[in-house]
C-alpha cells in the first residue's frame, strides 16, 4: 500500500466531502443558514457557493423548522439534500420536523415514503460559549427510531461519512463536534466513503475498555496513553454511529477486558452513556469484573467561565480515575 498522504483538517475534509457529493450527484444540494455567502458559520462550506451557485448552495432564513422540513419534502420529492443546522442548539427549533416527520414518515406511511436526507450540525461544548451554545444532544437524537446518528471523530470519518450518509435511504444526522474543525493531520489523498455500521477500535488494549465517540475521542486516547504509563492497557472504542449502536464491537471488547468506562459529553441522566451502560449490563453482566463507570458532563447548563466549563466537562483526569476505579485501584 503506497497511498499518497495529504495534509488536511477536519473542516477541509468535510468541505471536500460536500464538494465530492455535489459533483457526483446532481440531486445533492446544501441548504442552511449562512452556508453560502458567509461560507458556513464554521467555514465548512467556504468557497462552495462560487463553485456551485446559489441554487445548490442555498442560504436560508432563520427558520430551522421550515428549512429542515423543506429538506424532508425535497428528499421525498427526489432530491438528496444536505441540510446544515448551524448548531445542535438551534436544531431544537426543528425538532418537530426531525422527529415527527423525518423519523416517522417511513413507518407511518407503511414504507411508502423514505426520507433520504442528511442533516449536519455542530455539537458540543468546550469553547466558552455558555449554556445555549454548548449542548451535546446527539445522544438524545439517538433515542429516536428511524434516524441514523453518526459522529465523525477523525479526519477519515469527516471525509468519508457524508457520502455513505447520502446513500442511506433514511435520514442521517451528522454531529460534528465544534472542537474538531481545526483538527489537522494527514489523510490518504484518495480517501473516500467509509462504512457507517461499525464502531472502531482506535487503540487496542487488554485491561479495560474506554467507550466514547466524537469530541471526547481525543481526550480518551490521551487518557489511555496515560494509563499505559501506569501499566494499564486500555482499549479505546470509537462508537462512530450512535444509532444504530454496533453492539458487537464494544460488547466484544468489554467481554474480553471485563471492565468498561463510558466517556460521553452528554449529561449523565437518561443519556447515551446510560443506554450503553444498560446494554453492557444486559448483555455482558456475567463478564463484568467491575461496575461500569461513566464519565459525563456535570448536570448543569454549561457555564461561561473557563474554569467552570472545564470542571463541567469530562477531562483526561476523570477518565483515568474512572479507569483505575474499575481496576479496584487508587489512581
Amino acid at each position, binding site marked *: 500500500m503506497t497511498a499518497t498522504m495529504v495534509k488536511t483538517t477536519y473542516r477541509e475534509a468535510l468541505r471536500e466531502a460536500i464538494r465530492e457529493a455535489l459533483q457526483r450527484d446532481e440531486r445533492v444540494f446544501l441548504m442552511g443558514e449562512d452556508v453560502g455567502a458567509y461560507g458556513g458559520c464554521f467555514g465548512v462550506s467556504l468557497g462552495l457557493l462560487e463553485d456551485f451557485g446559489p441554487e445548490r448552495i442555498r442560504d436560508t432564513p432563520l427558520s430551522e423548522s421550515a428549512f429542515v422540513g423543506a429538506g424532508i419534502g425535497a428528499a421525498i420529492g427526489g432530491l438528496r439534500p444536505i441540510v446544515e443546522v448551524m448548531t445542535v442548539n438551534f436544531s431544537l427549533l426543528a425538532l418537530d420536523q426531525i422527529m415527527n416527520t423525518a423519523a416517522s414518515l417511513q413507518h407511518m406511511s407503511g414504507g411508502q415514503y423514505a426520507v433520504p436526507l442528511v442533516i449536519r450540525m455542530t455539537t458540543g461544548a468546550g469553547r466558552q460559549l455558555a449554556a445555549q451554545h454548548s449542548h451535546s444532544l446527539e445522544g438524545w437524537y439517538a433515542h429516536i427510531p428511524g434516524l441514523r446518528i453518526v459522529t465523525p471523530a477523525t479526519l477519515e470519518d469527516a471525509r468519508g461519512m457524508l457520502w455513505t450518509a447520502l446513500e442511506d435511504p433514511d435520514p442521517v444526522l451528522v454531529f460534528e463536534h465544534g472542537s474538531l474543525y481545526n483538527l489537522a493531520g494527514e489523510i490518504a489523498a484518495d480517501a473516500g466513503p467509509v462504512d457507517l455500521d461499525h464502531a472502531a477500535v482506535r487503540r487496542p488494549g487488554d485491561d479495560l475498555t474506554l467507550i466514547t465517540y466524537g469530541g471526547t475521542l481525543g481526550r480518551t486516547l490521551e487518557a489511555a496513553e496515560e494509563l499505559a504509563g501506569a501499566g494499564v492497557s486500555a482499549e479505546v472504542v470509537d462508537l462512530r454511529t450512535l444509532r444504530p449502536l454496533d453492539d458487537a464491537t464494544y460488547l466484544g471488547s468489554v467481554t474480553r477486558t*471485563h471492565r468498561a468506562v463510558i466517556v460521553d459529553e452528554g449529561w449523565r441522566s437518561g443519556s447515551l452513556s446510560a443506554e450503553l451502560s444498560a446494554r453492557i449490563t444486559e448483555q455482558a453482566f*456475567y*463478564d*463484568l*469484573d467491575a461496575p461500569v463507570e461513566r464519565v459525563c458532563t456535570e448536570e448543569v447548563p454549561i457555564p461561561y467561565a473557563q474554569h467552570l466549563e472545564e470542571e463541567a466537562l469530562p477531562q483526561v483526569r476523570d477518565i483515568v480515575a474512572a479507569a483505575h476505579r474499575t481496576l*479496584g485501584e487508587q489512581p
Partner: protein
Amino acid sequence: MSDFTMPSLGADMERGTVLEWLVAPGDVVHKGDPMAVVDTSKAAVEVETFADGVVVDLVVRVGSEVPVGTVLAHLGPVGAAAPAPAPEPAPEPEPTPEPAEVAAQEPAATTGHQPVVHSPLARRRARELGVDLASVAGTGPGGEITREDVEAAAPAAPPTPSTVPEAAPATTPAARGAGRPRVTPYARKLAREMGVDPAAVTPHDGETVRASDVRAAAIAAPAPAAQAPPPPAPPPGAPPPTGAPRPTAAATRAQTMRETIARLMARSKREIPHYYLTTTVDLTDALAWMREQNAGLPIAERLVPAALLLRATALATARHPALNGFWVDDAFVPGSGVHLGVAVSLRGGGLVAPAIHDADRLTVTETMAAMRDLVTRARAGRLRGSEMADPTLTVTNLGEQGVESVYGVIYPPQVALVGFGRVVERPWSVDGLLGVRPLTTLTLAADHRATDGFTGGRFLATIDDLLQHPEEL
C-alpha cells in the same frame, strides 16, 4: 328492531354513565339524532343514533354506569310502535348518587406466618443479622416489617464478627455486606467455572472479589501431586490489609488457596480422563546457544533455560492447536491465541499461573522479557485481569524446585499441561557414543476427551525437535 348501545368514544373509554335521556319511548328518531347524554368520565357527550326508528323502550336508567356495548334502548321500525302516550316516565335526571365508595381499609393484621416485608433494606438486614423474618412482628403500615423491627429482633451481638465500624454510612462499600466482600459478576462466573467458592476468596483490595482474586485462589499448582512447597509460616510483621495480595493474613490465605486447589484438582481428576506422556530432551545445543547469546549481554538481558523451553512450547502449541484451548459443554473450544499459563510460585505460599499472551508470536528475547515481567508483577500483586483469566495451556517448570519430572493435573477447563523437570547431567548416547549431556524430562498431561495420545506424542516430539535447533527459536 335495533339496539341503541353505549358507544365507545375513545380508546380509553370502557364504561359510560347515562346522564340524561334526550328521547322518550314513542319518539321517532333519525340517524344522527342525539339520543342521550353520556358521561365518559372525561366529559358529557351527546350520543347519536346510527339508525332511524321509533324508541320502543329505555333500558338503562339515568345515573347507571354500564360497559361499552350495553343496550341502552330499543328502536322499532317507524310506524310499528304503539302511540303509547308517555308511558313509564323516564326517571328524572337526578344527580348521580355517590357510589358507595367506602374503600374497605386493608386489615392491618398479617395473616399467619407470612411476613410482610417489601423493604429490601429490611430483608438485607435480616440476612446480615441472621434474623428469621417469620418470627418478626411488623410495626409498619399494614404490618410491614421495617428495618427497626429486624434490628430489634436481632440477637444482641451480630452473628459474625465484623470489623466494620457500626457508624459507617450505608453508602460506603465497607458497610455493604457486614464484612463479607462483594463479588463481581465475572468473578462469580469464573468461580463457578473453576469450582471456587467466591465467598472464600480474599479480595486484594479488601473490598471486592474480582476475577484476578478468583484466579489467584484457583490457579494453584496445576500439579499438586508433585508440587509441595510447604506453606511457609506467616512472615513476620503483618502487612497492611490493603497491600499487595501476597502476604495478607498468610495462614488464612494459604488455607483458602489450599481449599481451592483441593476443589479444583478434585474436579479435574473427577472429570478429566488424563493421559500422560513423557520424553527426555537433550538440551546440549539449546544451552550452548543460550550461553552464546548471553555472552557479553548485561545480566538484565540474559536468557534463562525456562525462556527457551517456553518458547519451544509456544511454537509447538501453535502447531498443535488441538491441545490449545478448553473443554466446555462436552466440546473442545479452541483458544483464541496461544496464551501460555506460567506457573509462578508466590512467596508466602501458593501459585498463580498468569498468561503470556500470544506467546507464539514472541521471540526468545521477548519471551524472556515477558516472563520476567510476569513473574515480577505476579509477586508484586500487579497482574492484569486478562492475564489471570485466559491461559489456553499451562506450563509448569517444577525443575526449578529440583524435581526430575512432573506429571501434572490439568487445570480445567484447559485440556493440557506441559511440565519440565530439572536439567540434569546424565550419560547419553549420541551417534553411538556415550557422553554426559544436560537433559530434561518433558511431560504432557492431556485430556483424553480432547485429544488422543498420538496428538500428544507429536506435540512432545515437536518441542524436542525445536530445542535441537535453538537458533530457529
